[in-house]
């Protein structure tokens, strides 16, 4: 049997106005980041319901990162402030249930920060890869 290198699956929720454009900029600048990152574009980081994050884990994600505009720079003025509170509480709760806290992250990436986007993704993928497969939030019914 051929042994393949473990590749984590990362879901990145990126807000349309800053982080998604930041990802674009990273691409335009030919900055590389692992192809393990699957980007889902959302209108605003506060569109992300805590259920989305759990759902991503259920469907096999090993890590979930949520990127939005810097606080104060939200396209909708205040969306990411609510994201910040929600995610602080959700991540703390995941930690409380004994789920590895390194599997989730929130990062603020502006449209001008292509380099930050690539660096963040490189770092996060390495962090999740070091943890290995997500076992604590997996749903065997969704395993192929």
């Amino acid at each position, binding site marked *: 049997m051929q042994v393949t290198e473990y590749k984590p699956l990362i879901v990145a929720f990126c807000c349309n106005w800053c982080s998604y454009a930041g990802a674009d900029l990273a691409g335009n600048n030919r900055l590389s980041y692992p192809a393990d990152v699957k980007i889902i574009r959302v209108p605003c980081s506060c569109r992300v319901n*805590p*259920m989305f994050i*759990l*759902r991503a*884990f*259920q469907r096999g994600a090993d890590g979930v990162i949520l990127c939005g505009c810097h*606080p*104060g720079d939200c396209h909708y003025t*205040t969306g990411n*402030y*609510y994201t*910040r*509170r*929600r*995610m*602080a*509480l*959700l*991540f*703390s*709760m*995941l*930690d*409380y*249930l*004994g*789920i*590895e*806290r390194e599997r*989730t*992250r*929130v990062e603020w990436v502006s449209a001008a920060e292509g380099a930050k986007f690539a660096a963040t993704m490189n770092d996060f993928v390495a962090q999740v890869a070091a943890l290995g497969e997500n076992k*604590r*939030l*997996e*749903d*065997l*019914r969704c395993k192929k």
Partner: protein
Amino acid sequence: MQEITREALLSRAAELFRDGTVDRALGWRAGEFDYDVTPGVFTSAEELENGFVWNDFCGANFSKYLIRETGLTEKKVLVFLKPCDTYSFNQLLTEHRFARDKVYAVGVPCAGMADVKLLRDRFDGVTSVEGAEGGVLVHTLYDGDVTLPQAELLPDRCRNCKSKKHVAYDELLGSDGEVLDSHRFDEVEQLERMTPDERFAFWQNELSRCIRCNACRDVCPACTCEKCVFDNPASGAANKAPSSSFEEQMFHIIRAFHVAGRCTDCGECSRVCPQHIPLHLLNRKFIRDIDRFYGEYQAGAEVGSRAPIVDYTEGDIEPGEAVEGGARHA
């Protein structure tokens, strides 16, 4: 032993029915045994006379039932509220879930309720329970008659009672107490001091007993959505999958999250859980975190207060810091 007697509540209720203030009452209905008390709707003083009870097993919080009953009444709904119920009452008012002028709320002092599970674990064949000198007198089939202090039968929510003060009422029978300095977060902090592996094992042990009966959701005074995310068969939490732990965790995280900032810590979820899962520990974690991150907040203490989760400040804690710093050791 409760300060106010059943007769005092009944006579006041009869007066209110007689003078036409109310045309229905929410009260505790007797079951087969003393400890089988269920919530009930009474439409006359006679019905109350026959079926109403007030004893150490009247834990049910009626606030949520007001949503339905205030829509049905032509006058007002009489409701008996213990101190912890008044917080839920206020929270529902804050959320505009029922009209205040459709309710006649009678505050009832509470000396703490008894935990049926503790009683059953301890005695075999409990037939009746009554207040007695020095505590509670339990009559049993196989263990004889035993008198024990009420403190030994208190459930967690009463041992760590947060308040004996009624924050809402039209009329108070008996005396009002104070907001207490409770130790309700001790257990949460104890869990936080464990390693992640220990915590995971603890919660797996608890949550794997969940049979997805939705009783915690149905009884919760904060869970009042007409359409619930868990009624969606595609939610992934609608059935019990024996092969993995995910749907349990998702159900319980989301259930607790949906009431975060609005949960008054009334403890009804843990009371009704047929599997005795300490669900209040999830809610209290959110309350604890909200207190630490965004300042002390008690849902329902005031009508109209803004829940921290629908509010923000520019200097809020970052989600990364929240787990590494604040939450682990206060």
